[in-house]
């Protein structure tokens, strides 16, 4: 194991998959000559050439659709959105064409495509550039959605996504690109299956269910809670769809108390689905009402103080945990 950044981990995943399979190519805005708006594709143009690392004009609908078409005949495109906020311009391709094709063609055409890029609020980018898209994409049958929070998960999940025979969205965490973590050495194949959560910290009093940018937040809060003798178990979903019900239920059966901390909006958010499944399946295991900490239900304001007020934070999470623990 060695310590690398989330950005480097993604870069390694791309390079390894490009190296392994000649059908894989990377396409998007500024991915080649500029090395990626967030430098995730640093060095790939030099290594794999312009045939496989392809700059596009600002035409999300066009190049997302190009990827879907290329996938119909067996290529395995990796389409980078500079941010998933811009994927909304390509919503028709991501929602209508990629996941429907397999059904509409009676199983003749599967679409092995990866859509990836930063997702979720960053810092003072305002309403149009701060979308957390996981809940709307996860609601579409035929799509798979993962949300890595650590460099190891970023590498392992992206590699798995590229090999998957379905459209997979890898929603990277914009604020975590420079974060560091331990990852297996490059000569060791690292594949993390979709639909498998991971307990990032064991605990016994309360399950904090989180993903993406809320994972480091939950871990930080868990450390604070420890000082107050509350033992929080941190369950990182890693994939939103498929959802690892078993991991959630196992943890809840142990702690009997749940807080879900999510980076999307509360209305029809990821936490709503998780909450439903817990009460539907293991109602008797719950000792307190399940709480959710999410964004406030408003378009993201630019003002820094207001932005902070919109986002989940340590105070909100601490308060929610104490409430479910009646502490």
């Amino acid at each position: 194991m060695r310590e690398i950044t989330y950005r480097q981990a993604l870069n390694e995943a791309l390079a390894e998959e490009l190296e392994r399979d000649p059908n894989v190519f990377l396409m998007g805005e500024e991915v080649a000559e500029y090395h990626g708006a967030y430098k995730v594709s640093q060095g790939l143009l030099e290594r794999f050439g312009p045939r496989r690392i392809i700059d596009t004009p600002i035409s999300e609908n066009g190049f997302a659709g190009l990827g879907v078409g290329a996938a119909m005949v067996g290529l395995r495109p990796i389409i980078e959105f500079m941010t998933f906020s811009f994927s909304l311009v390509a919503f028709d391709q991501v929602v209508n064409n990629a996941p429907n094709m397999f059904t509409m063609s009676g199983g003749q055409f599967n679409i092995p495509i990866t859509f990836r890029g930063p997702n979720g609020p960053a810092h003072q980018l305002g309403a149009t550039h701060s979308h957390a898209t996981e809940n709307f994409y996860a609601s579409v049958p035929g799509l798979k959605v993962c949300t890595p929070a650590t460099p190891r998960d970023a590498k392992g999940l992206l590699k798995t996504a590229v090999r998957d025979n379905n459209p997979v969205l890898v929603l990277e965490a914009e604020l975590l690109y420079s974060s560091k973590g331990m990852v297996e050495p490059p000569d060791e194949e690292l594949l993390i299956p979709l639909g498998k959560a991971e307990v990032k910290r064991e605990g016994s009093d309360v399950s904090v269910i989180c993903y993406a940018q809320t994972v480091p937040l939950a871990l930080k809060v868990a450390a604070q809670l420890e000082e107050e003798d509350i033992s929080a178990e941190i369950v990182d979903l890693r994939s939103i769809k498929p959802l690892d019900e078993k991991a959630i239920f196992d943890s809840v059966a142990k702690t009997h108390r749940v807080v879900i901390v999510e980076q999307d909006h509360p209305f029809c958010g990821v936490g709503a689905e998780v909450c439903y499944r817990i009460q539907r399946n293991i109602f008797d295991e719950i000792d307190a009402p399940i709480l959710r900490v999410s964004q406030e239900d408003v378009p993201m304001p630019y003002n820094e103080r207001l932005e902070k007020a919109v986002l989940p934070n340590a105070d909100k999470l601490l308060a929610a945990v104490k409430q479910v623990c009646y502490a």
Partner: protein
Amino acid sequence: MTAMQPGEQRDEVEMLSLMLLIRRFEERASQQYQAQKVGGFCHLYIGQEAVVAGAVAAVRDDDYIITAYRDHAHALARGTSANACMAELFGKETGCSRGLGGSMHFFNRQNHMYGGHAIVGAHVPLAVGLAFAIKYRDEDRVTLCFFGDGAINQGSFHEALNLAALYKLPIVFICENNLFAMGTSVKRSTSLKQIVDRAEGYDIPGEIVDGMNFREVRDKVAEIVDSIRKESHPAFVEVRTYRYRGHSMSDPASYRTKLELEKYRLDDPITRLRAQLTREGKLTNEQFDLLDKRSKEMVLASVKFAEASPQPPIEKLHDFTYADGAKP
């Protein structure tokens, strides 16, 4: 359809036979729709037969074709059986998309027919992706992308044309201009005097072709495809055609006059090719009648086949969402 060798042309009588099959199929589809055997939306191709027949006659069987929702003819032209097409309209498991696609989503992977796409303009980027794959693999295929005059004002169309020109992809954009996007005439939808000028904005060579004339469509597309195979580039063809029926089964087409329709009927693409072949001594009246009889029989048989075919099983409802059978 037989595989073509370089320089060889498809038999014109065979292509006339295809046009007849398309027409008889659509007539019967219309009847079955009215009898409520066919659900959803149903858009008929009657009047436009020479467009797909001419274009397909100009390319190889391994070239890619993709179209919008008026797609029955394109599937038939690519050798999908009338049985599989009619069964799809009936929503049966034996349909060309297992009854899961319906009228607007016909596919035939084996014969390189890539749909069947129902969001106007949304398949044009897909077509560019097919062409991208051809160039990526250094193959000499081409992609024929069919769409209607309604598609040319969608953003996806413009983005796709720009990408195709930028990457010099082997694709022919074939605009089947039947003068109406649903009920809106081209004059009321498009700022240009002629649609072909859209191509000029992307530095893509464009041509106007008479879509009621099989030979003109075939020869022009063949010439373009020949040029593309020599050196990869996109091209645009505005094919001027006319649909005899409304936009879909539910449209009485009251936005146009009987006179206009009659004018086009006089220029019918099947009558025209038949006359050309008869004049040249390549087809007798008896032969034509036999072809037509066969088409009618084939289509009638397809209705029986569709009627008798099983429904897609409910137990398999979740089998066609993910390619790996995942059930999240």
